[in-house]
């Protein structure tokens, strides 16, 4: 138990370091941008200064953090196996949060690898870090691996929970990108130049990435909710019982469904979409945390 808790702690500090490094990278790139003329940022090798090494380091620290996070989850799985014969390392609130931050960071690293934009890291890794931080703020009794209650003791927990949590991670990324969009948009509308916002990708690109994240989260959530319904059909005697948790997952799904349909109209790109992504993520947080602590229901295991 203590091994995995130690590794979770290390993950927390590594993510914190990564966030600091990414912000350092932003500030350094801003300095590198300053000598540019007429609002045309030129970033050549010599101008970069600290930005390049900081960015590299940030990526490596994030990657290392992800490894340790994965290791911590693996260790927890092993401990669970010893304890109760099931290994799903997402069986309580703490483990679920840790898994979500793992998924967020993994998703971000994939994004960075594919699109090569580091500035996003400051925001998305922050979301992952906050998830990890919130998990470590939970009381100790929530952090340890208690044996599973009978209803959870099933192979469905592996697939239903992991898929639903992965969808949360995708929505978290969309939320982080939404915040990023709004910040950059505000800076641009005020005509400010030479700020860290110049290092962000273009508004259009942030917008599209946010949309892509939602497009990953949306089908995953649909799949997760339906797997939950199948599980419920085995465990609770009915595939749908309007339990607060499942209802809230449906609410979140509907909210993003409305978003995806709204984007078919041109007017729902950019500002509105970014605001909506942030709002949607708020709803995800409520679904994930609020329901467990504020509303009672069949899912109130943690």
């Amino acid at each position, binding site marked *: 138990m203590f091994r995995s808790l130690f590794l979770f702690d290390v993950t927390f500090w590594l993510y914190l370091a990564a966030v600091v490094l990414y912000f350092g990278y932003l500030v350094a790139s801003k300095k590198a941008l300053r000598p540019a003329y007429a609002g045309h940022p030129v970033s050549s090798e010599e101008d970069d200064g600290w930005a390049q090494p900081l960015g590299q380091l940030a990526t490596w620290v994030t990657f290392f953090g992800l490894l340790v996070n994965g290791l911590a989850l693996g260790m927890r799985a092993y401990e669970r196996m010893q304890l*109760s014969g099931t290994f799903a390392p997402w069986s309580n609130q703490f483990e679920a949060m840790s898994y979500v931050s793992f998924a967020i960071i993994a998703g971000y690293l994939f994004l960075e690898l594919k*699109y090569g934009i580091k500035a996003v890291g400051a925001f998305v890794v922050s979301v992952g870090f906050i998830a990890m931080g919130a998990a470590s703020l939970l009381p100790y009794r929530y952090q340890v691996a*208690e*044996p599973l*209650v*009978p*209803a959870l*003791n*099933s192979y*469905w927990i592996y697939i239903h929970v992991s898929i639903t949590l992965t969808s949360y991670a995708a929505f978290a990324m969309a939320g982080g990108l939404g915040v990023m969009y709004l910040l950059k948009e505000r800076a641009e509308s005020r005509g400010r130049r030479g700020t860290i916002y110049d290092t962000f990708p273009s508004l*259009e*690109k942030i917008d*599209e*990435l946010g949309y*892509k994240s939602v*497009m*990953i989260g*949306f*089908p995953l959530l*649909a*799949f997760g909710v*339906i797997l939950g*319904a*199948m*599980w419920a*059909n*085995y*465990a*609770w*005697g*009915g*595939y*749908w019982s*309007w339990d*607060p948790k499942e*209802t*809230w997952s*449906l*609410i979140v799904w*509907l*909210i993003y*469904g*409305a978003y995806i*349909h*709204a984007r*078919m*109209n041109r007017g729902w790109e950019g500002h509105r979409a970014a605001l909506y992504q942030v709002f949607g993520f708020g709803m995800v947080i409520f679904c994930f945390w609020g*329901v467990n602590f504020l*509303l*009672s229901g069949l899912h109130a295991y943690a």
Partner: protein
Amino acid sequence: MDAITKRTEDAKSFSFKELGDALVEFFSSLKLAIFLMITLAILSTVGTVIQQGERPEVYIKEYGENVYWWFVKLGFVDIYHTWYFSTVLVLLCINSLTCFHQRFPAIWRSIRQDKVNVTAAFIQNLKRSATVDLPAERSKVAEALGVAFAERGYRVLVNKGGTETTLYATKGIMGRVSAHVAHLSVTVIVAGGLLGNILGFRDFGVCLEGETYHVPQGNFDLHVDKFWIDYYDNGAVKSYNSTLTVIENGEKQVTKTITVNDPLVHKGIWFYQSSYGDSWDRVEKARIVVRDKATDKVVGEAILDWRKEAELKNLGLKLQLTDFVADFGFDAKDRRVYSKTVEHENPAIKLAITESDRQLAAPWIFYNYPDLFEIQGSKYKFELTGYLTKKFTGLQIAKDPGVIIVWIGSTLLVVGVMLSALIFHRRVWAKVVSERHGVTVYLGGTAYKGQIDFDREFQRLSEQLKTLRQSTA
């Protein structure tokens, strides 16, 4: 006269058609879809904030009587079964079906035939376009473009004219088809849910080990062979299990041990291990302490099995535990003892006493009030000092013939949403026009979704086009 009648008829039929079109337009609109989804989300939220299907006292205690009155009026205490919630669901089905009707045929047609011949102006007006002059032969450029499209997985159609060749390349139309599959699935799921509501049922049974129960819905009997609880090392409950046997016409059909995630299914009826608890009308064993009335000293002790006579030879006593209630209540009208609740608030046993071969009264003995009654004609006092509860197994019994339809709809939904999120419809046109110096290529394209990826792809395509200058010259 004739002319006038004819004109009004025209006008009438025209306006009917117009009305129909307007209705279809309205019901298939995106705005309605968004409105309905948000409405459904808000109504569902109300249902999670206000507890559903509770007893009136619970609401009155929390919100007061006035608010409760409004809750009942507005259906907030059972919002998922109100007429307006169902209406929104039905409207959502109509919405997605009309959308399918309105938009799918065009998509289907474009799979078979598509707009190949377009003007150069059309291409230049597309969201992404490039114009490149190349000193090369028209046929070679067209061929190279065709290969470039095909390499990226596009389906290519070519139209050769006198001075110009038009290429049309498309991929990912399945993304749009699957979006409509998802639309249809909504209706399938709702239909499955409705069917289950009409033809299915859900019941709850409190069953005891060793008893047989009749299941009228399936016309068979269910015998509970065994019930037990497994624990973890730290004492937490690991699982609870019941071994059930289905008996039909006196013959044993199936025996299965069910546990929380593993129900028994017979003739479409599902038996779930739902809960367990302490019975309120019987116990396994009870411990009785016997005191001498005169000295108040303990003279004997007996552990009685349920409804089995036990003998205390040295005291000349025969005792039998005949009844138990967990929360003693007395119905004065029927002169009947019953358990007021299922909680063990005021447990009592009925003890049949035979003293020196003389049958005495069978008094109720209370666990919480040992000195309540004096038993006439007996030398002894009897105290109930403990009992072993009899566990009942809580079985949920359900039948839902709609469930298979719900699964079909769910599969369609997941596959549809997944594919439409992953596959983006893209269309690219290239027009190669012969000029004096060689050719001018107009390249342009649109993507239905996934703009960044398409941007990159288009960028690469136009760069590849520019390199044709060297290779074909």
